[in-house]
């Protein structure tokens, strides 16, 4: 299956600390995306990284992709209580339809 699997399943940190979440997948991909889901809400697209890219930044977000290891990481720097949410990686192949994992539940304590 191409779907990504996030690690860890849950992460609890203090405000101001960095949060790192990892994603591993099994097959070749066109791109990998990260989405965020607040409790009881839909998923919101955060960032996309193409298979030929190694690193991408967006504000406090930094995403890396290692296609040789079939893995990606999402780093949230200087976390805030409002970053509390579940974070999902999603991989896409030919049809570009994203396939999601189980997510990492992040809690940022004020």
């Amino acid at each position, binding site marked *: 299956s191409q779907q990504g699997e996030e690690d860890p399943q849950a992460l609890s940190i203090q405000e101001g600390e960095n949060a790192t979440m990892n994603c591993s997948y099994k097959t070749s991909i066109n791109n990998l995306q990260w989405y965020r889901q607040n409790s009881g809400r839909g*998923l919101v*697209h955060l960032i*996309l990284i*193409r298979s030929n890219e190694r690193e991408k930044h967006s504000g406090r977000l930094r995403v890396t992709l290692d296609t040789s290891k079939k893995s990606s990481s999402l780093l949230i720097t200087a976390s805030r209580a409002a970053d509390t949410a579940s974070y999902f990686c999603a991989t896409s192949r030919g*049809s*570009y339809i994203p396939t*999601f994992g*189980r*997510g990492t539940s992040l809690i940022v304590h004020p």
Partner: protein
Amino acid sequence: EPEVTQTPSHQVTQMGQEVILRCVPISNHLYFYWYRQILGQKVEFLVSFYNNEISEKSEIFDDQFSVERPDGSNFTLKIRSTKLEDSAMYFCASSRGQGENSPLHFGNGTRLTVT
């Protein structure tokens, strides 16, 4: 900012009944999707829809399920003869196109509870 809207937010039904979950995608989007998320599990792809027909579907999307775009704005998911294991959050999503420049926009979901 335009949103995908889903109704109802919560649907309770008895086993064996039929339910219709409704979605209004973003108006200039051309691709529509249904995903589901069983509590604590991964978000699973069900079906994608383009140009008034199913473009791709997963193994989950069997004869029990159907989708329809009955008019210019609504996109529905019908589940016939519901089972207990159909209890989940059902998310509708839409995108302008299909590709790297067209991320999916999700609604807030319908929580389906089958009793």
